[in-house]
Every structure is written in structure tokens, then in C-alpha cells.
């Protein structure tokens, strides 16, 4: 019986269907000498840091030996090595406290993703086609060095990154600084910089606050989905659980103010829908700083309700107000944030604090990617602006013009598809990693952790690559660290000079607590609906859409899997004859998307909401060309003073485009527990 038959047999007997999944050429595989440090069958637990969001949860990695198919010195083969098996929260970590969110746990699939880049790649197709051919590291580094040396003006070197990733920010900032390039453009779609700016003004801390929910008796949240997708979710969930049931006889109450029900709204005791962009007025009214009758006019919340909540707030101390998410994605976001800060001051604010953390504000302007226009060389790291930036910012067009683009991405995503060279990074489990938690716990400290397993592919830590590249330049440049390990261990984001990036604190001239109308793109007459994109609980801003576990994770509120959809109020849907799964054309000033509809009871009749995360041009076999990209509808409206994108300020019109085509995949059979209660026998 040759090996192939054996595989088939074992597959049939079910002892290793895993092997069954592999293809034919088993017999060509050779077995490398196993690593000596393995103890077969015995699991070890090693600490690491979750890379998915900026919360920086400490994770506990279960490590065990397994056969891994890999390439060693050009030869494909199987090696027995210690590999990560499962991610759990690190019990001793002040942020995760042993828990971990779905995205964090799925992060392990980044390491083992079948479409992960196994070695450096060079483009061999048209830009954006996503077709590459493998090259060696020496060639790759040499090529990048030569391109850098070829630059006559280093100012033409642009770097696009993602903010709030601990020392990785420092790495690129330092690199840019030392080679004399402009500071990196750090872009994320769902940015909290407005709140940071407001806090800088209100508390002198340009940082997200930490809320001591466990002690709270009353919490009002303005738009912040702090149990789902906003802020330090794991820590906030833990605190919320304790607020609800950890204190005998005391149960904290949560009031959620928002226009579309989030998981946080779902868990709230009271859900208060408001007109988009008017949260600030409600906050002021609750703080007694705005006329309630007027507030009712503006927000659409009944005065009686406002009075009652204000009274409850006053009675049930300690209380705290939270603001974030869509509430701060309007043109009047700074006002809203400041207003909520005012409310918190009125409430005493003993539940609101700031973790010891080096405040950083990312570079911002109304046109963050304007600089790309005259860039000659571009480095991209973990950012995906082609996917996540409004069309009107013309990122795609800019990239097409840039002569040379190098990416450090592990996968071919929408932006990396434009790269000429890919220098794939290790997965976080294979390399030194760190995080500087900004909020979630007052005792949160910057943490770093070493690799928990050897690399399974021929990849390299981006830190080491950059250091090497800097060293190989015609006029070699020294970075502050010898290697990735030093970088991770160094707790020095402060070494980065970001001051020039910070816009001036809000001018003293204008009172930021004055009610200012939100401005929306698109006239109400042509575009009658508010368009509310939101961070998908599974994919966040789309950066985890390539992980199969998350694709198949039913959405908490719609139970949708492998889909993108638009949420419509039942009455509106009825008027337009739209049922679950029916196709709808959503049109903004920026274009039209065709997506299946979900009839969604928790949203106002004049609002439609759509999760961000699907609709990637390129993002592995699991996410490519799946669903539609909500960000592509966004108008380039920004908050005037901070320049952050007002991603909730776009208006759209919708039209029924056809019957269900099966692209909406729901796990749930029914929306209601007793669907026939209304029926007469």
C-alpha cells in the first residue's frame, strides 16, 4: 500500500480527515529533521499580543507539536515542529483578563492561512491584477534598496501605515525621519481622533478614556458600540458583565443613544434612537446645559424621556457617559465629543480616567492622501486605503501613478495588489510583537512578547527588513534598534516626534459646546436616507475579512454569514416591497452599490446601515469579490477642525433592484421568538 492509499484510508476511517484534505503529490514530500525542542503531545502555554485591533489584549497561546508543510531552503517538505493551536486571553493581562473576542481568537488563522504569502513576491502582471511571482529575499531587499537610492529627493518617499500599533508606528516614523522622508500617513477608517482632540482640550490628554464600568450604576453611551466594535472591547465587556451582575443588589443600568441598534444597544436596558449627529445636544440637555424642549426638536427624543434619564443620572451615581462610533463621525463631531465631556464633568467623572500611555495623534488633514500625488516611491504597511478610503480621495489613481510601491503585507489585499514588490512579514506568532494599550484598564502598560513558534514560511519580520534596508543604503542609515526584538522591548513611542502632526488644540475663540448642525453630503431631496456604515463585529474595518472562522461567524444581530447587506427599517421595507435577501440599489453622490437587504427592526425609517468589511477586490480565496464595500459610497466629508473623516455624514437613496439571489446567507430562521403571536386562529 503506497502512501497515497494510506492517506485515503486514514481519511476514510476519519482518524485524519485533515490529511485527506491535501492534494495528490504526497509521495514527493520529504520529511525534515524535527525540531529538537518539541515534547510530543504535551501542550505549553506562551504569552503573546493580539494584533487585530489597537486594544492590545495580552493573549495566551497553546503550543503543541504538529506536522507542518513548509519550504526549507527551496525544498518543500514536512517538518514536525511546535505550532500555535489556540489563542486565549492572558488571565494576568489587565486588558483581556483571560477573555478574548471572536476576532482575536480567529487571529491564529492569519498564521495558517492557505493564501498567506510564503516568500517575497515581485509583480508579474498588470497593477491591481494581483499576479506575482516569487523571488528571493536577497533580490527583494536589493531591489528595494536600489529603488530608494534611485530617489533624487527622499521627500518623494511616502509611507502609508495604520495608527496605534505600538512600536510599529515608531519603527516607520523613525525610518521616515532618518531617511528624510515625510512622516508616515497613518490612516484608519473608523478613527477616534476627534475624541482624542476633544479630550486633549477637556482633560489635556489626547487619548481615549478608560471607563470604570464595573463600579457604574448608570451608563449613557452616545453611539459608542463599546461592547462590540469600539474601544477596548474585551476589557469593556468584562467590566460590563460585572456592572450588571457582580454586585449583590446593585445592577448598573445602560442607556444606549444611537440611530441604529448595535450589539451594545441590544444589551442596553434602554435604547434611545436619535437623529444622526444630534447626540451632543442630548448630552448637553442631560447635563442641564441645553433647553430640553429644544433638544426634543433637534434630537427627536421625547422631552419626558430626556427629563427622566437626566433625573436617573442625577440619582444613580456613580454614572458615566461614553461617546464614540457614528456619533463622532459627523461634521459636528468635535462639538458632540466636547458636549459629552461636559456631561461627564457634570456627573462628577470619577469613573473616567486615562491609562498611562504616550499620547499620539496621527497625521490628519482633509486630504490625508494628497501627499501621494507627487510620491515616487511608496511603502505600505498593514494599511489598505484602496479599500478603506473614500473614492473621492483617489487613492487608487494615485497608486497607479506612483512609479514603485513596496508592501509588507502577508496577503495580497486591495492595496498590495498595486505593489511592485511584497516583502511579507511574519505572523505575530512567529515574531516579536508589542502593544501600547491606550485604554481599557488604568493599569495597562505597554507589553511585548517573543515569538511563540518558528516561522512556517520564508517570511521576515518587517522591523528586521527595514533595519537591513536602511543599513544597505548608499549612505547607510542607523535605526534606533538592532532588530525586531529590541524594537518590541523598547517602550519609546515618545521618541517619535509627532508634534508637527498635531493640529492646534481647538481655538479658544469659538465655544466648542455651541450646538452646530451636522452637515451631510447629498441633498435630502435627492438622497432621502442617511447612510450609516458601521464596523462589522467580525471584520472590523475589513482587515479580518480573510479569516474563514469570521466569515462563517453569524452576525450577532442579523445572523448573516459570508455576506454583506443593507439594513432597512421594516416599515420602509414594506413600503418599497423589500423582503430579506431582495437586492437593493444604494446610491450616494459617489456611486451605487447593489446589495441584499436585511429587514432590521432596530433602525429608524429614514436610515439605512451597512457593515464595512466585505467587498474586497483582492483578499484571499475567502474574501475576494465577496459582497460590496460600504466605504466606496462614502463622500469625502470631514470634521473641519481635526480633519477626521465624517463617515456617517453621507446621504443615499435606495431602490429595489430585484428578488433575492441567494447572496444573503442567514443562519437564523426567524427574527422573533413567537412569530405567530399576532395571528388569529
Amino acid at each position, binding site marked *: 500500500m503506497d502512501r497515497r492509499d494510506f492517506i485515503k484510508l486514514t481519511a476514510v476511517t476519519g482518524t485524519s480527515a485533515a490529511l485527506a484534505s491535501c492534494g495528490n503529490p504526497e509521495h514527493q514530500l520529504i520529511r525534515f529533521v524535527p525540531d529538537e525542542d518539541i515534547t510530543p503531545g504535551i501542550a505549553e502555554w506562551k504569552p503573546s499580543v493580539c494584533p487585530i485591533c489597537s486594544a492590545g489584549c495580552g493573549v495566551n497561546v497553546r503550543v503543541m507539536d504538529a506536522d507542518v508543510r513548509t519550504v526549507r531552503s527551496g525544498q518543500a517538505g514536512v517538518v514536525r515542529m511546535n505550532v500555535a493551536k489556540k489563542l486565549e486571553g492572558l488571565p494576568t493581562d489587565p486588558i483581556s483578563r483571560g477573555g478574548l473576542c471572536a476576532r482575536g481568537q480567529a487571529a491564529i488563522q492569519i498564521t495558517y492561512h492557505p493564501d498567506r504569502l510564503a516568500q517575497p513576491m515581485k509583480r508579474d502582471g498588470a497593477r491591481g491584477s494581483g499576479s506575482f511571482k516569487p523571488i528571493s529575499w536577497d533580490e527583494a531587499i536589493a531591489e528595494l534598496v536600489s529603488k530608494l537610492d534611485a530617489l533624487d529627493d527622499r521627500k518623494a518617499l511616502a509611507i502609508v501605515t495604520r495608527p496605534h500599533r505600538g512600536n510599529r508606528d515608531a519603527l516607520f516614523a523613525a525610518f521616515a525621519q532618518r531617511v528624510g522622508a515625510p512622516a508616515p500617513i497613518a490612516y484608519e477608517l473608523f478613527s477616534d481622533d476627534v475624541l482624542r482632540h476633544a479630550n486633549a482640550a477637556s482633560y489635556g490628554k489626547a487619548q481615549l478614556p478608560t471607563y470604570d464600568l464595573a463600579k457604574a450604576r448608570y451608563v449613557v453611551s452616545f453611539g459608542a458600540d463599546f461592547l462590540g466594535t469600539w474601544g477596548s472591547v474585551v476589557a469593556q465587556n468584562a467590566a460590563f458583565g460585572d456592572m450588571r451582575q457582580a454586585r449583590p443588589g446593585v445592577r448598573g443600568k445602560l442607556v444606549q443613544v444611537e440611530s441604529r441598534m448595535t450589539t451594545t444597544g441590544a444589551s442596553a436596558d434602554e435604547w434611545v434612537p436619535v437623529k444622526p449627529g444630534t447626540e451632543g445636544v442630548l448630552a448637553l440637555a442631560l447635563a442641564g446645559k441645553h433647553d430640553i424642549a429644544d433638544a426634543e426638536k433637534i434630537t427627536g427624543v421625547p422631552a419626558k424621556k430626556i427629563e427622566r434619564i437626566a433625573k436617573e443620572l442625577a440619582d444613580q451615581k456613580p454614572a458615566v457617559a461614553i461617546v464614540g462610533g457614528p456619533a463622532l463621525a459627523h461634521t459636528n463631531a468635535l462639538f458632540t465629543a466636547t458636549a459629552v465631556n461636559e456631561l461627564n464633568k457634570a456627573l462628577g467623572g470619577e469613573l473616567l480616567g486615562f491609562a498611562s500611555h504616550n499620547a499620539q495623534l496621527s497625521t490628519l488633514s482633509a486630504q490625508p492622501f494628497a501627499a501621494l500625488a507627487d510620491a515616487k516611491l511608496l511603502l505600505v504597511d498593514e494599511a489598505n486605503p484602496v479599500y478603506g478610503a473614500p473614492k473621492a480621495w483617489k487613492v487608487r489613481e494615485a497608486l497607479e501613478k506612483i512609479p514603485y510601491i513596496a508592501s509588507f503585507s502577508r496577503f495580497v489585499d486591495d492595496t498590495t495588489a498595486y505593489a511592485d514588490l511584497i516583502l511579507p512579514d511574519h505572523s505575530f506568532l512567529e515574531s516579536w510583537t508589542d502593544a501600547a494599550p491606550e485604554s481599557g484598564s488604568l493599569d495597562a502598560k505597554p507589553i511585548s512578547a517573543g515569538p511563540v513558534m518558528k516561522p512556517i514560511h520564508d517570511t521576515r519580520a518587517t522591523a528586521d527588513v527595514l533595519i537591513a534596508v536602511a543599513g544597505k543604503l548608499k549612505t547607510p542609515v542607523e535605526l534606533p534598534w538592532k532588530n525586531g526584538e529590541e524594537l518590541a522591548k523598547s517602550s519609546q513611542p515618545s521618541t517619535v516626534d509627532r508634534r508637527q502632526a498635531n493640529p492646534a488644540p481647538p481655538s479658544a475663540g469659538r465655544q466648542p459646546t455651541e450646538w452646530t448642525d451636522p452637515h451631510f453630503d447629498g441633498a435630502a431631496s435627492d438622497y432621502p436616507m442617511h447612510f450609516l456604515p458601521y464596523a462589522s463585529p467580525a471584520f472590523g474595518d475589513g482587515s479580518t475579512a480573510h479569516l474563514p472562522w469570521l466569515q462563517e461567524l453569524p452576525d450577532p444581530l442579523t445572523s448573516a454569514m459570508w455576506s454583506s447587506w443593507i439594513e432597512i427599517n421594516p416599515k420602509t421595507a414594506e413600503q418599497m416591497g423589500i423582503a430579506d435577501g431582495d437586492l437593493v440599489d444604494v446610491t450616494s453622490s459617489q456611486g451605487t452599490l447593489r446589495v441584499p437587504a436585511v429587514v432590521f427592526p432596530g433602525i429608524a425609517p429614514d436610515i439605512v446601515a451597512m457593515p464595512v468589511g466585505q467587498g474586497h477586490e483582492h483578499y484571499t480565496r475567502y474574501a475576494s469579490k465577496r459582497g460590496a464595500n460600504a466605504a466606496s459610497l462614502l463622500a469625502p466629508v470631514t470634521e473641519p477642525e481635526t480633519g477626521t473623516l465624517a463617515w456617517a455624514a453621507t446621504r443615499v437613496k435606495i431602490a429595489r433592484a430585484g428578488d433575492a439571489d441567494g447572496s444573503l446567507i442567514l443562519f*437564523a*430562521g*426567524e427574527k422573533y421568538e413567537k412569530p405567530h403571536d399576532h*395571528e388569529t386562529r
Partner: protein
Amino acid sequence: MSHVSHERLTADLLRPLEQTSWRFYLLVAFLGSIVAMGLGTWMYQMYMGFGMTGINMPVYWAFYITNFVFWIGISHAGTLISAILRLVNAGWRRPVTRCAEVITAFALMIGAMFPIIHLGRPWLFFWLMPYPSQRLIWPNFRSPLVWDFFAISTYLTGSLLFLFLPMIPDFALIRDRATGIRRRIYGVLALGWRGTTKQWHRLETAMQIMAIAIIPVAVSVHTIVSFDFSMAPVPMWHSTMFGPYFVAGAIFSGIAGLIIAMASLRKFLHLEAYLHPVHFENLGKLLLMMSMLWAYFIFAERLTTWFGNDTGEMNVFYVTQRGSFSPLYWTMVVCNLVIPFTILALRWLRTIAGCVVASFSVCIGMWLERFLIVVPSLSHKYLTYSWGHYRPQPVEIMITIATFAAMTLLYTLFSKFVPIISIWELKAGDHPSAALYPAPMHEHKLGETHA
């Protein structure tokens, strides 16, 4: 029957065995190919994986189980009816019994295949049998599926013997008339039957005992099939009336099947002289009665559910009565009650043709009934979040079609090699002068049904 001489009778009934027309080969080839396709489809399903079907979470049973119940139901025509008719010694049974019992034998074989076809790992079906299989563990006698195994195997054994015993004297008859290899074969089948008075007595006593034994078995079989459902706490399944409900339904569809079979025999084998309109008349009345009985049962079921207003059951009630299953549901009502009732209640419509139309409608209706028992309940169990849908897939449809072809094929072949009407019983049916034989021998003569 007395109008036909014994010679002509023998000749008529043996004609199909002695001469074969090209139509027969054509029919066999046609049906055979469909059956082959069905088997091929099953192999394909096993090779590709059970996912080829439309089964899903939570609708884990659908077409195959529907077919299972349907065919077991059809099987209730033959043996049960002929046993009853034998016990009451109804004279008009004589030409009917065998073609009825054959239906039982074949329908049972086909039906019994479905529990195997629907298995996730059919290659391990024999673990259902009572022997210490995997890790020396015997089957779980608490499981209705194991009851099924015992009930069906008992019923099949009984039915086959019940069918075979009265064939022995006819085999002997053929043996004596035939030559060469046929003589040898039928000789073996005849088990050396001579026809001594002793043998006749033993045979008839045996048939009496079998008849008495087979009736409760037949009832038990479909009751146990119904237990497959009623033992599970599934809305609209967990019901004490399922036993009688299923038995009644089985006899209902069984009679329909029998009428169709007899009509086609009468037509294609030219048995007009033996299968008289009055046979269909009588069976038609029986069918009418069962149709009303069925209506009574479904009404009882619906009313109890509706009045009881239990949430779980009402969910299923609504989806069948008004929801996505309602078209099928009302089709079922029309096929099982409206059509057969109108046709069979009116004497001038209760012709052979009328009975056949009614029977076809009943077969469709009863298949739907089983489908509507299995699927809506499963797709609408208690937790509404876990509700689901079911769409049959090609493999299931193909295999279902193939079973009907298989039934027809087996029946055709049988009537080719065995006289489909019991020759000796027919002969024994007509007696010389009434004066001769003792009173208890009086039997209900054909034609006296309404003189």
C-alpha cells in the same frame, strides 16, 4: 366464475407464462434502465457524500423517509386485505388475494431499502441487526429504528411465506404441464406437491394460522413506523394517535395501490373474465370508507392542535395550514378526500376507470401526507432561531422515481413467471350442487354482493 370452464381458466391464467410479446421486453428494458439509473444515483450519492441531498440542519429527514413510510404503507394492501378476506371467507377474494399479496412483498422490499439509503454511512447499515457489532455492543432495543428492523423483517418473512404457500399447488400444475428446464424449476418450487386431501387440509389450516398471525403483525408494522415519529418530542409528531392514524393511512394507500395493480393486470393480461367490475366496486367502497376514515383522523389531529393552541405545535400548524407548505397541504386534502369521495360516493362514477382515477389521486395525496408529516415539523421545531427550509435535490428525486419503476418492474416480472391469479383457489371457488356439501362450507359468492 362458474361461467368459465376449468380448462379455459387454466389456459387463460397460464398464457402470460407461456407466450411473450415484444411489448414485455420493451417494458422491462425501459423500467430496468430507470431502476439502474436509480441505483447509479445512490452510488453517486455515497461516493460524493450525503450532502448531495437537500437534507440540512434542521431538516434531517425528508424525501427518503417519506418514501419509506409511503412504500411501507402501500405494502399494507396485500397481505392485510387478503388475510382479512380469507378469514371472513369472502368468495370474491379468490381472484384478488395473490395480486394483492405480491404488492406487499415488493413494496416492503422497496420500502425497507430507504432506511439504508438515507443513512449517513450506509456501508455500516448491518449494525442495526441484532448481533454484537462494534466493540461487541448489541443494538439499542429502546430505539424505534431497531423496532423497525424486527417489525419489517417479521412482516416481510410472513408476507413472503403467506404469498408462497398458496402458490405451491399452482407450481405443481405448471410443473405437470411444462417440459424441460421449466419443468425442473417449477418442480423444485412445487416442493413435490401432489394434492392429497391431507396436503390440502394442512395447507388451508396453515393459511388460516398465517392469516391470523399476519394481521396483528401488519398492524404493528405501521404502528412502529409511526413510532419513529411519535417517540420524538417534535411538535405534531409526539402524538398518541399516530399509530392508528398511520395504519389507516397505510391501508388507504394500499387499497389504492391494489386497485391500480388489478386494473392494469385486467387490461394488459386480458383477465376481464376473472377481475370483474364488481371487484373494483367492492374495493372502491373500501377505498371510500378509508378516505372518510383518513378525513376523520386528520380532522381529529388538526382540531386537537388548534384547540390546544400549544405554541410549538401551532408553529407547525400555521406553516402547513397557511404558510409555505399550504399549497401542498391543500393538494393533499383534495387528493385524499375531495376527489376519491366524489368519485366513489356516486355509483355511476364508481366504474373501473373511476376507481383507478381515485386511486392515483389517493397515492399522490398519501405521499404528500407523509411528506407533510416529516418536513414541516422538522423545519419548525421549538427554537424559532433554528428554523430551516428544505429543497429536494436531483439525487433524491431520481431515486424516488426509480422506486416506482422498480415496483412496476418487479410486478411485471412476477406476473410473467407466476400465475397472478391463484388457479386452484379460483377452481375451488365454484361448487357443484349446493345440496352436496355441508352448511359451514357456504361462502359469500361473487355477484351476491348486490343481487
